[in-house]
Structure formats: C-alpha cells, structure tokens
C-alpha cells in the first residue's frame, strides 16, 4: 500500500507571532519556519506504517512557495521515499489545496492519505475533510490510533468528551491528533541521504486546477489585550475576592 502524507510550511510554533502594523497580516519576514506540528505526526505515522510492513512507499506532498522544499527534505530525512511539491506563489485556501491534492491522489492512487488535522497558522482544520468529500474516500479525522485490517481501517478519534472508534473502507483519509504518536528526529546520515531522494515539482496548471479566491482577508489585528490583575496574599484573601469582588463563587 502506498501512503501519501502532506506537510505544510508554517511559522515555527515557538515563535511569538506579531501582527504587522498596517494590519495586512502577520509578520513573517525573518522568522523561523518549520513543518507544521500536526504534519510531523502525519509523517511519523506514515513511516511507522512502512516500518510495520503495511505501507510499501511513503510519498510526501507539500504545496506553496519554493521554500517548502525544506520541509519536504525534512520529511525525506525522517523516512519518506519521495516528494512532490506543487509550487505556486499564490495564496492557497484550503479548498484549493484539497483540489490540488485530489489530482495528486488521482495520479498516485494511495491506499491511505494522512494529513495534520490543522495548521498552526490559519487554524482552519479543513483540508483533510474537504479532500475526503472531493475524492469520495472515507475519513477518520482527529485520529489517535490507526489500525489497518485488510481492506478496512479502524480509526480511533479524539472527540469532545472522549474517544470514538470507527471502521472505514479503504482507501481512507486520516487527519492526525496529538496523541497518535511522538515524532522522531532526523539523524544526520539520514539528512544527508535525503538530499538524494527524488523531489518532483509540479504546478497547479500542470494539474489542471485553477486557483480560485473564495475569501478576502480584510484585516488582521492583534487580539484585545488582557491586563493582569492583582496578587493576593493568601488563600483566604483569594476566596474573599472571588466571593465579594468578582462574585463568581
């Protein structure tokens, strides 16, 4: 079975986000970029499936600017076999990404596609579900466990209030939640080896997808600031304040 896994290049999760003074967006100049944490979990899961003998090949895909090759090389160093970059300078909304990925799926015919449940920049949590709808594949979102059993997959999902297990007919689309696995680090020899693994660049035009604008970003502003309050001396004062000042207990 071939496993397709996607990675998104995003601002590193340790970087403090600053809104540009003209409110046109978030300042991304000279900030550290990295693979989206949920995508790291997706890559790890694909590699584990290969190590377990379930996956035969792991293909990693990214979409966006040329620099996304860095994140693809990282995924190759972690153990993916080959990479595809759909290169474009255009801003890609989730639906555009899903349409482009649907074309790649048509070409590659994977048995499973694994995506991060959301990217930590736009926080959309959409692409996997859109891709499932467009391809007609069954979806296991927010997965904390994926078990392949012949032509079925058992996916345990992190839902509000607990865990839900569903059985899906293969091929499937899974999106990762935090507890699916703990991603490994790439070793230096593997980073060197990754430089020689195949990386193919395609364009949206080659895939026959025209990028359509569905939303317009009007402004990006910092969130309202929350001011710190006071320090209380002891528990008794805290209880007194909560009862008589804040009136919440």
């Amino acid at each position, binding site marked *: 079975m071939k496993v397709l896994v996607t990675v998104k290049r995003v*601002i590193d999760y340790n970087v*403090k*986000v600053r*809104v540009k003074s003209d409110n046109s967006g*978030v300042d991304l100049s000279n900030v550290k970029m990295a693979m989206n944490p949920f995508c790291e979990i997706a890559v790890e899961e694909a590699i584990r499936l290969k190590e377990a003998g379930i996956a035969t090949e792991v293909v990693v895909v990214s979409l966006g600017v040329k620099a996304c090759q860095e994140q693809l090389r990282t995924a190759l160093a972690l153990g993916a076999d080959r990479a595809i970059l759909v290169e474009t300078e255009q801003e890609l909304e*989730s*639906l555009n990404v*899903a349409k482009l990925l649907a074309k790649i799926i048509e070409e590659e015919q994977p048995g499973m596609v694994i995506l991060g449940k959301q990217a*930590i920049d*736009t*926080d*959309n949590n*959409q692409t*996997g*579900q*859109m891709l*499932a*709808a*467009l391809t007609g*594949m*069954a*979806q296991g*979102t*927010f997965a904390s466990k994926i078990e392949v059993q012949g032509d079925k997959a*058992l996916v345990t*999902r*992190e*839902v*509000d*209030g*607990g*865990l839900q*297990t*569903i*059985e*899906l*007919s293969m091929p499937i689309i899974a999106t990762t939640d*935090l507890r699916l696995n703990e991603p490994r680090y790439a070793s230096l020899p593997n980073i060197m080896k990754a430089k020689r693994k195949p990386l193919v660049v395609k364009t949206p035009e080659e895939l026959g997808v025209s990028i359509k*604008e*569905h*939303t*317009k*970003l*009007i402004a*990006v*502003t*910092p*969130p309202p600031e*929350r001011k*710190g*309050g*006071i*320090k209380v001396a*002891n*528990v008794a004062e*805290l*209880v007194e304040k*909560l009862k008589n000042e804040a009136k*919440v*207990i």
Partner: protein
Amino acid sequence: MSILVIAEHDNESLKSATLNTVTAALAIGADVSVLVAGSQCQSVAEAVAKISGVTTVLVADNAAYEHQLAENMLPLIVELAAGKTHLLAPATTSGKNIMPGVAALLDVAQISEIIRVESVDVFERPIYAGNAIAKVQSLDAVKVLTVRTTAFDEAAQEGSASIEVVASVCDAGKSRFVSEQVAESERPELTSAKIIISGGRGMGNGENFKILEAVADKLGAAVGASRAAVDAGFVSNDMQVGQTGKIVAPDLYIAVGISGAIQHLAGMKDSKVIVAINKDEEAPIFSIADYGLVADLFEAVPELTELL
C-alpha cells in the same frame, strides 16, 4: 438570508453548543432553520423547537444518522443547502468533522471558528492560536461557517418552531461506528462548565489531580489540564485546554501549577475571571490573571477546598 444550523446532540439531549450557534445565526439574519439528524431523536427535535428565533426544525431520523458519520451527513446537508445562504455548525469535533466536506461539495470555502459576525458576509476569526484576529469576507454565494461557541451567548429557549420531517436517507456504506469511550464524570463538560479548575506540569503526577477534583466538587466545576500535563501522561487528552485542545471561556478559570504557555492561554484567555496559583512568581500566567496567588499548590489548593 436563509440560514441552516446543524444541531449537535446525542440523540437524547441537545448540546448547548447549538444554542450559541443559533445566536451567531441570528446575528446574520432572521430566517433560521435547524437540522436535527440522528436516530430516534424526537426529544432533541422538540428541544430545538423551543430555541427562540428558530423558525423551522428539520428532522432526519434514521439509523444512518445515529452517529452523524461524515460520509452519511454530507449528502443530506448538501441536499438541504439548496436555497440557503448560510450553513452553520458549532466548532466542536462533530461540526469540524462534517462542515468542511459540505463546503467542498458546494465548491465554497469554509470560514472556521468565527467569533464575530460583522455583516452577512464579513466575519472575524482567530488565527495563529488566537494571537491574531482575521477579518474575512466570504466571496461565495453560500457561506459555510463553524462557530466558536464561547464567543456567542446561548439563545433563549422560549420559542415554538414548527417541526418538519426530512425523508431522504443516505447511507454511503463506507464507514461504520464501532465504539465510544466517553470519559465518565459527574462533573460538567469542560466546554460548557461555568467554573473550571485546571492543573499543569506543577501537579507532579496524575494522582495529585485529586486535590483539584476536591475543589471542583465543592464548586460544581470541571477539571482541565494544560498540554504539558497531558504530554507528561498525568491525565487524558480530553481534559486538555489550549490551542490544540478545548477552547473554554467559563466565568471562573483557576489555573493551578500552570506556567502559562501561549498554547494554553489560547484556550482559556477569554474566561471572565482568571485565578492563577503558582509558586513561580515570574510565571507568565500571572500577567493575564485577575487574581494571582504565589504559593505552593499542595498547600494552597487543600486550603482552598477547606475555605469554600
């Protein structure tokens, strides 16, 4: 404007997230229908009929909808979307599971987790874990939205909408519900609790969460945790409050042994009153807390239980 809200329920009772979502819908327009898709869910339909402002309740009652599997829900919602200008669902795991697929089939965008309705096509939503707020205009004919429930009040329940039966049944046959492990608790759910007490890495281990539970029992509160506490294996992930966990905004949030990583703040900073108990007076959590107590939590928390 003609708006359809997807109700969240467990076939027996309506989840309050639906009430917040109806409030968001009413901020867009007055013609609000609500879809209740489930199995033997008549009691839910009756509860929805009482939500003030709802004109019509559409009930799709069939075994295929019992667990609201995306593969079965999508064709149903797409069919009912005909003539609608807006489709809304709460940004719960269920709403997030279903709505993007609906949007894709309608060839429109989804605007996720809206926190404000500016006009019929302009909405605000948090990005970068709430470190920025984006104002977004939809250019599509149909707007598919998920609603961050903590940003909207619950709609009143004094209405009397008509109930209509939806006959169409879709069982795609691609997915099957197997089992559910619901964390059983006498305490309220995190996302609907009025008071939450959460523990962080400072709790030391899972056993120590018992002292938080004692406070929770006195206050009728829910117990939460930071990602650090979940990652350390102290407690299960469904207790996680934060960017990658649950987004909460209770009347009172008590953070115990939580340093206040951006990740955590993103999930609770809209709480009305925040209390922080931490022995490190430099902990970032104090910069957003209304009441800070610099103390050893293992002394302060039992004392708090005593005094409540």
